[in-house]
């Protein structure tokens, strides 16, 4: 038998290809992955279709508003009432010209559903306050939300380690139990090299399958599922990042299997120990981190926010200031309107009152937003406690369905809403009527852009969290494998 590691690996590879259980485990992984991918891609498609409908509806509304303005310019005002007159900027800023801000599914969104089924993916922008926006999250069966979705990310995080462990947990102990280990030791071969080759081939078998599955899923999504085209929108770079995380995560579990194999216990003991490690890292640590995060960084309930809004409304209603005072408060925040604002104008006063309410609520909502983000940041930091948590965060970020991208969406929402309302408020306060040119000048809806390179820094941290413990454990295990035949139990 050749001593060269490469030759050993090739031989083990040939042996493995004839092993039925190896093919069976890959078949099960592939079957699960197909179902998971079907789930993920149907959800991504649902989101895309919904967003397409919303854009079409928005275009129709724009066209009809345009047509009405043209008609009015010609002097034809049939069917137009005060509440629907598109020339009034106060009316124009509401439902008639509402814009949809969309969080379109990224190129790998079919691989990881993440939080995208809970958080809204489309919000309607009007001049109305963001705080009183109606319910916009997608309709879904709460039992299904509670159960969670079977997507590829879930398979990778929870089940893929079990497959890696199942293939590698009894390489050494199985040889000992079958009696072939002493046979191997009696031959003029480097026992450690042979065992490592066996382990490496079996580990690579599963890790390779996982990578192939991911690549196939992404390619199928981009060609058939209506997803982003291959080269566009950074799909390839994201796919490379995804595969890197999958390989790193699989390598960690492989290293753990190597270490446990080197402990010279029986197969059943190995299985229980590795299961215990899986349990500790995939189940217990995330549970403890969740509890710590929710206790140490509690988020005030939305109910208290709703009560705060009512409270502010009550206060403003009981102490009604004079028009001049109310307008004064408004102008203190928006000095650019000072020259043109006029207490006699009902629309301006309505704006002023709404702005007063908003000003009262701003600190309350600022505290809420700060606490939510603090909780997310804490969870981000604590992900280093478990490779499963680090991989979870990394996979969701690469797919764009985690908290990170939604935060970008929320920031864009706040900024765009401010620009949109400023555009119409300017015209309300100045008593300008809307014209066709004004309609075209309404600020365009931004697209949520998240170039792959912004993900690199957090991803590198996550990869370090996965690989460093893996490397330590793996190197220790590899060293100890040399002694595996000197003491038998």
């Amino acid at each position, binding site marked *: 038998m050749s001593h060269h590691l490469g030759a050993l690996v090739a031989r083990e590879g040939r042996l493995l290809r004839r092993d039925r259980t190896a093919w069976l485990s890959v078949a099960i992984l592939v079957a699960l992955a197909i179902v998971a991918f079907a789930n993920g891609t149907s959800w991504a498609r649902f989101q895309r279709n919904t967003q397409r409908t919303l854009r079409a509806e928005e275009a129709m509304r724009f066209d009809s508003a345009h047509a009405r303005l043209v008609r009015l310019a010609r002097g034809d005002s049939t069917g137009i009432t005060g509440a629907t007159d598109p020339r009034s900027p106060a009316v124009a800023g509401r439902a008639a010209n509402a814009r949809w801000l969309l969080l379109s599914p990224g190129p790998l969104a079919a691989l990881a559903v993440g939080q995208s089924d809970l958080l809204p993916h489309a919000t309607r922008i009007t001049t109305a306050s963001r705080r009183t926006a109606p319910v916009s999250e997608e309709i879904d069966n709460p039992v299904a939300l509670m159960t969670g979705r079977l997507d590829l990310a879930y398979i990778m995080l929870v089940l893929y380690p*079990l497959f890696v462990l199942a293939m590698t947990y009894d390489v050494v102990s199985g040889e000992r139990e079958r009696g072939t280990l002493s046979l191997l030791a009696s031959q003029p071969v480097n026992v450690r090299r042979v065992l490592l080759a066996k382990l490496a081939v079996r580990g690579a078998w599963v890790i390779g399958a996982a990578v192939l599955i991911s690549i196939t899923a992404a390619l199928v999504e981009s060609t058939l599922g209506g997803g982003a085209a291959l080269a566009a929108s950074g799909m390839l770079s994201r796919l490379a990042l995804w595969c890197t995380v999958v390989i790193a995560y699989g390598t960690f579990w492989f290293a753990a299997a190597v270490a446990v194999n080197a402990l010279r216990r029986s197969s059943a003991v190995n*299985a229980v120990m590795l299961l215990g490690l899986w349990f500790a890292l995939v189940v217990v640590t995330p549970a403890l981190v969740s509890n710590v995060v929710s206790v140490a960084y509690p988020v005030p309930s939305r109910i208290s926010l709703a009560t705060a809004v009512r409270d502010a409304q009550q206060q403003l209603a009981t102490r009604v200031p004079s028009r001049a005072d109310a307008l004064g408060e408004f102008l203190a925040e928006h000095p650019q309107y000072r020259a043109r604002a006029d207490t006699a104008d009902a629309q301006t006063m309505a704006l002023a009152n709404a702005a007063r309410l908003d000003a009262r609520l701003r600190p309350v909502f600022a505290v809420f937003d700060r606490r939510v983000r603090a909780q997310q940041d804490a969870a981000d930091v604590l992900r280093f406690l478990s490779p499963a948590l680090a991989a979870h965060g990394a996979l969701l970020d690469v797919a764009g369905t985690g908290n990170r991208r939604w935060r970008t969406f929320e920031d864009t929402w706040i900024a765009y809403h401010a620009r949109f309302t400023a555009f119409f408020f300017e015209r309300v306060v100045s008593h300008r009527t809307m014209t066709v040119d004004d309609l075209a000048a309404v600020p365009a809806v931004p697209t949520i852009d998240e170039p792959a390179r912004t993900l690199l820094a957090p991803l590198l941290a996550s990869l370090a969290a996965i690989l460093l413990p893996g490397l330590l454990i793996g190197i220790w295990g590899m060293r100890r494998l040399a002694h595996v035949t000197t003491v038998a139990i």
Partner: protein
Amino acid sequence: MGCPLGERGGGIGLMTISHSSPDPSTGARVIQAIARREFIDLTRDGRFRWSGLVIAGLLLVALGAGYTAHRAARADRDGAQSQMQAWWYQQPPKNPHSAAHYGLWAFKPMPPLAFVERGVDPYVGTASWLEAHRQNDFGFRPAMDATAVQRFGEWSAATVLQQLVPLLIVVLAFGAFASEREHGTLRQVASLGVPARALVIGKSIGISAALAIILIPAALVGALALGLSAGFTSGDGVRLALLAVVYLVWFALVLAVVLAVSLWASSGKRALVTLLGVWAFSCAVAPRLVAAGARALHPTPSRAAFQSSVEHDLANGLDGHSPAGERAKQFEQQLLTAHGVRTRAELPENFDALVMQASEVHGDSVYDHHFGALNAQFTKQTAIQQAAAVVAPLVAVRFLSTAIAGTDLTAHRAFADAAESYRRGIQVRMNGWLARNTKPGETFSARADSAVWAEVPPFVFTAPSVRAALASYAVSGVVLFGWVLLAFAVIRTRSHLAVE
């Protein structure tokens, strides 16, 4: 149990079996001896101590975290609801229609057992604004404000009992027969004349006793926490007892499956790997598959599509042919004919207010139609999921557990319906007052005072009884018992092979 040879074999000497005749009293003593032996073996095992400690620890942490969060949330909601109610009654004199627009918020209460079984509560909205003209869906899902980590990792006491205790049972009992057979000690036991049935029963009792050591303290802590929580009633005690029964049946089912696999497998290692695969599939994969299947078979519309079809029907009537203007004309005609007068002014009540109420009624029918269709889809999905519990019994346990705790979808719907009835009641009263006490032309300028607000009774919600809650999940109960019977049947038929 995969332990080194000899440990188990040595225990046989402790069994004092003098003869093997099927005498009931000695039969019971045999079982007792086997049970005691199994119990001692298990509790001495380091693996039991570690895994038992971890599970018990997780259970207590889940109970503790659940209890503190629950108490805070409950106080928050109850306080907020009474504040909202007070604000309604304290409204200054204003037009009743303005009051109807002001409305109040309905906050979903948390049932006492929600600290054990959170159910769907994090995923359904907690608040709905009860305002005029519009039935708002429930918003503010608590899970939206939580992190992705919490969705991945958070465990309530119920999920620990549903998913992790079975894993504990697997780890404790996988080798009950398989390892003994592998090491040959089972043959030695059989040679003493111990009937196979006694062996199976004895081992089951021993393992159950070991489990009880881990679970009973947690159960007592849970009961204590429930007893200490505000608003505890005897009904809640009954619910806790029912919950205990459901989980005992679940553990019995799991133990039966584990013993059945242990009887069948040729070695401890094979039994363990098989059981781990079964566990991973049942807990991690099957429920998600079932939910996905139910959703695919009975899909629900997107939020945007739902809202736009509601708006379309509100504007054009349910049949799509009667816009508001036409409906108002028809209504006027009917009203004039009914009262036998010819003009609006001759009507005994304010026509404007009557039209408003008629429009509310129309809106109500539109909402009933659309929300009804949506809820019908959810009901169909639930039916599919319950049927699929045949391959994934965890789904059945979950349904029963959430139903008993009052955190299932039907409990949410009951509250949503109650809130909607209350909202409609407000509209009827406000529009009724306007109809009786104002003339057309002053409909929206008239003012009412707090006597009118006080006519609206406070919003009180009584949760449906346990019997009503469980009625929707009869199929789950049947499936669960079916599984237990099947597992026992398999054990019964294979137990004679135990010693081979």
